[in-house]
Structure formats: C-alpha cells, structure tokens
C-alpha cells in the first residue's frame, strides 16, 4: 500500500506518544541492570578495585575487555552510516539513525569504563595537562593518551553526525505538538525553518562530516589496538592488530545494529519501514566481515605458530588446547562456523536468521576481546610469574550493566526522537518519483517498487 507523507509521519511519530506495557517492562529491566551496575561500581570505589578479580600478572581483564568491546560496537553506526551516505545507497534511509545512535551510546559506555578502572575517579584531574607539583603530566607517547584524543574526537563527531539530521525532525514535532512538547522540541530544533539555504547547508555539512568521520572511525579502533600492540607482551606486539581490530569492530557493530533494528521493528511496530531487505543487506555485510575476521584470526595465529617463538607459543597453546581452549573454540564457532552458513544461504538470511547470527557474533566478539587480553597477560615471559584470572560477581554485574545501559539509553532515545529520519524518507520518496540519484529509497507503488526499500517487498 502506498504511504502518504502524513501516514509516514504518523507511523514514525507514534512511538513518541504511545508506549506499550512491554516497553515499560523493558525500561524497568534495563534500569534495574543499570542500578545494579552503579551499585557495583560504587562498591568498587569504596573498597578499591581489589574487589575485582585482577591480580598479578593479570592487571587487565573484564574492564578492558568491555572497553574494547563497546568501542568496537560503536563502529556500527557512524562509520556504516557515513559509508552508505557517501555511496548514496538508498536503502540506508531507515537504518542510519538506528545505527548512529548505537555509536553515541556505545562510545559513551566505553568511555565510562576507564573512569571506573582508575579506582579513584575523583582524582582524574591529575591527568589534566596543567603545571603541578606531583610531577604528573600527560605522556603523549602513551597509547592511552592517544585513546583519549581519538575517542573524544569520534564521540564529538558522532554526536554531531547524529544530531544534525535530527534538527528538521525536531522542527516537525515542534509544529505537530502543543504545550511542553512544543517548547522542548522548539528548543531542540534551534528554530529550524526549512528554507532552501538551510537544507543546502545541512546536506553539505552532512557530506563533509561523512568524509571526515570515516578516517576518524578507522583511527579509533586502530589506536585501541595499539594499547596492546605497543606493549612487549606475547601475542600483542602485532603489526596487523590495527586492521584486525577495525575489522572486528565493524563486524560486532553490524551485529549490534541488526539486533537493535530487530528490537525496534518489533517493539515500535516499524515492520513496514525496517523490511527483510534491510536485514538481508546488513546480513551480507555481516557475512563479509565474518570471512574477513576469520582471515585475520587465521593469519595472526599462523604467523605466530610458524615463528614458534617460545613465549608466544605458550600463549598460543593456552588458547588452542589449554586453559582457554573452550573459550577459543566457542569464539570460532560463534563468529564463523554458525554465522557463515546462515548468512551465505539466501533462504536462511531472513530476519530471524540474521538475528540468530548477530547474537552469536556479539557473544563471539566479546570472547575475542577477552581472549586477546587475558591469556597474554597470564602467560608472559617468565613462567614463575604466570597466573590466571577468574572474574568476580562485581565484574559480572558491571559487564551486564553495560548491556542494560545500552538498552536503557536506546529505549529512552526512541521516546524522544523518531528512530527513522522522516525527512530523509521523504527525500527518498521524491527521488523515486523523479528518478533522482541512487536507487529509490521509497519508491511509489505506482512504479511497482517498495514503499521503503529499494526492492519490492
């Protein structure tokens, strides 16, 4: 059925004004996890991070795993959205905002973790570059300082990239509501009018941002990989860690995006907008990155095995057939053996299929981060200093609360902002009528094409 502009607006604004019992239940569940996480964090602050399972020599474990994992998840949004924008892929339109929101929230969660890891965050100002008597100052040679600059740049860029296309939608809500909402969205819309000049500036700015944000996104996870690769620890000092991490980040990011889209589709009743075609296209991307991930994993381990350097082989064997072997093979199964057949066979690349594959990938990529961090630290050069690691309940709760915080932020966001950019859908509709650039995003039924996607549905 052909959708009119009014119907599209009604469908996409409905979640802002209505909420099902399921929505509130989800909010309550996510908020409970966040509260538990806040409790665990303050327990750690009060007692010291000795309440975590960290020990000598495993000084980094769950916290850094979660940090790398969430920074990786953040690659779903802005990077993918920017690439699809520059490629003028019309099917991106219902997907981009869902994706960009993931980036902002995942980066924010990732940025919280180092704060809890410093143990005494109220002394964080010691790291600021100002003259002091403690002899402390930022060391610009340290990858941790690079992390700060990379993540801050990516976060500012991603927030801008998310917010800019929301301005016209805020103006739409401003003009469609009354009372407090009108004032609230009036403020958020910055007085947007919709003149050709404003549209031109907005589209140009989005184009510039898309060009700038892609190299920033690549640099962020490369620099996160250098937190490890710049350190003389067995199996960390690898020249392919940069691209390996970027590949893994995009891989886990796409999986997270598919999961988020499936949940939004279900709970916000966006079935007509988030169609099987979107899941299928993202499924193809996920398949590509699953194969790439396997290639990097194999190349990384093959070169280690071939060199047969003793300290590295200790870590290698602990993963392949030692203490960490169950986790290693679970990772390979979840990241490669299960998703590849599901995503490669067209009949299985359905919404359910891509969701199953994505759940596997999210779990598998968390394990991958853990397996990069812990085995190398537990088997460093001197065997008498070897150790092991078991997480405590505090760390488990902190990890779970990360997922809770992500869910909560996403749920709240979906009550404030239309999860699909309404004006961008209209542009797609216009292009379908006029045969504009790119494949029609919202082809009219008269031409026998999908209302939302690029193909008939």
């Amino acid at each position, binding site marked *: 059925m052909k959708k*009119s*502009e*009014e119907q599209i*607006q009604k469908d996409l604004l409905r979640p802002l004004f209505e909420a099902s019992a399921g929505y509130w239940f989800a909010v309550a569940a996510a908020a409970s996890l966040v509260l538990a996480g806040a409790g665990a964090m303050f327990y750690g602050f009060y007692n010291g991070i000795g309440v975590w399972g960290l020990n000598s020599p495993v000084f980094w474990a769950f916290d850094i795993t979660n940090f790398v994992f969430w920074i990786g998840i953040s690659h779903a949004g802005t990077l993918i959205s920017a690439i699809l924008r520059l490629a003028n892929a019309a099917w991106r339109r219902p997907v981009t905002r869902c994706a960009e929101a993931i980036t902002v929230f995942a980066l924010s969660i990732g940025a919280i973790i180092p704060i809890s890891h410093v143990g005494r965050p109220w002394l964080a100002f010691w790291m600021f*570059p100002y*003259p002091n008597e403690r002899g402390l*100052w*930022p*060391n*610009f*040679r340290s990858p941790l*300082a*690079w992390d700060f*600059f*990379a993540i*801050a*740049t990516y976060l*500012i*860029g991603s927030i*801008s990239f998310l917010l*800019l296309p929301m*301005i*016209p939608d805020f103006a*739409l809500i401003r*003009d*469609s509501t009354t009372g407090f909402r009108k004032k609230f969205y*009036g*403020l958020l819309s*910055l*007085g*947007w*009018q*919709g*003149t*050709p*000049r*404003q*549209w*031109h*500036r*907005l*589209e*140009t*700015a989005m184009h*510039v*941002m898309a060009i*700038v*944000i892609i*190299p*920033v996104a690549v*640099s962020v996870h490369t*620099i996160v990989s250098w937190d490890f690769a710049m350190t003389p620890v067995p199996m960390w000092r690898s020249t392919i860690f940069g691209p390996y991490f970027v590949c893994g980040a995009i891989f886990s990011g796409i999986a997270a995006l598919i999961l988020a889209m499936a949940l939004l589709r279900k709970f916000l009743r966006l079935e007509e907008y988030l169609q099987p075609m979107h899941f299928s296209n993202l499924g193809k991307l996920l398949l590509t990155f699953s194969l790439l991930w396997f290639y990097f994993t194999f190349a990384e381990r093959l070169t280690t095995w071939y060199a047969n350097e003793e300290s590295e082989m200790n870590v290698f064997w602990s993963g392949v057939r030692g203490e960490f072997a169950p986790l290693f093979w679970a990772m390979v199964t979840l990241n490669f053996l299960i998703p590849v057949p599901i995503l490669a066979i067209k009949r299985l690349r359905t919404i359910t299929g891509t969701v199953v594959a994505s759940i596997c990938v999210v779990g598998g990529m968390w394990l991958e981060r853990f397996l990069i961090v812990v085995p190398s630290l537990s088997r460093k050069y001197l065997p008498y200093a070897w150790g092991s690691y078991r997480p405590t309940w505090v760390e488990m709760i902190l990890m779970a609360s990360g997922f809770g915080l992500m869910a909560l932020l996403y749920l709240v966001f979906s009550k404030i902002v239309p999860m699909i950019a309404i*004006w961008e859908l*209209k*542009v797609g509709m*216009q292009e379908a009528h*006029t045969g*504009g650039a790119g494949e029609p995003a919202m082809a009219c039924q008269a031409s026998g094409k999908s209302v939302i996607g690029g193909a008939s549905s």
Partner: protein
Amino acid sequence: MKAIYALFPDPGSAQDAFDALRGSSSTTGIDAAKIVVVSSEPFEGYDFSVEDAGKSYMFPLAALGGIAGGGFGYWLASFTQQSYPLNTGGMPIVTSWTNGIIIYELTMLGAILTTLATLLVTAGLPNFKRQLSDPEIWTGKILVGVTDPPEGARAALEEKFRQAGALAVKDFSSTS
C-alpha cells in the same frame, strides 16, 4: 515582520510562483530578496532551491579548521613535552611519530567543529524568533511567500499565487 504566502502542492507549482514573483518585481514593487520558500524536505533541480542556497564554502572552511586543529595538536603535544620533559634516555623529547597521532585526531576535530560552526552561522541557527512557516508544510506542501510586501500589493500577489496553482493564500505576522 509581516508576510503574505501561499501553499503549493508540488515543487513545480512552487517554482511557477517563484518565477512569477521575481518577474513581477517591477510591477508589484517586491524585493526579490524578500521572496521566501519553505519546505519539509530539500528539493534539487529547481531555481528556488539553488538561488537561495548560494555558496557555503563549507569544504574549504573545514580544511582550514583541520589545519588549525592540527596546528593546535602540534603545539599542545610539543609544548607539554618541552615544558615537562620525561627522561627518555637520549631519545627525542618531542616525538614526531607519536605526536602525529595527536595532530591527526585534532585535525579531524578541527574540521568537524568548523563544519558545525559554518552550518550554524550560514543557516542562521539558532533562531528562536517567530519565522514565516505553516504547519501544512509538514504534509508535503511548499510555502512560497513575500516578507514585508509593499502596501497595496496584496491583491496582485494573491493573483500571482492563484495563477501558479496555490492551494491557499494566507497572511503572516511575527507579532501575532
């Protein structure tokens, strides 16, 4: 600010109205710069969308912002390293390779912030004064209007709007 405007169902009729208004400036006395078009989506390939847009210089400004950001990054890293020198065992105090990363990130940040600032300035945002608009634009209609029209031009303007296919002709006052 006062205005007279009309709502059009499609960009083609909006373009007709825009052309008619511009062409009649000598008879109606309206200033072409006071013709306003407002829509709920961008339109490409129409004069009304091109003429108002003008040049933004956003790309070169972003590049300049990037250069400024990178310069700041170089200064920040090298100044700190020289002011608080670590014992590097004879290795360089100001390390070009690693400072390159800080310079790179701040170059990008400079470009991003400059783009944001350019957008806000050139698009006239934020602007919380009451502006010429109509809720009907969100249903796909296009507003074409004239701000502060000359005394006695209303009838002539309304006729131009009607001839171009206006769905409705309305008056606007920023004070009401």
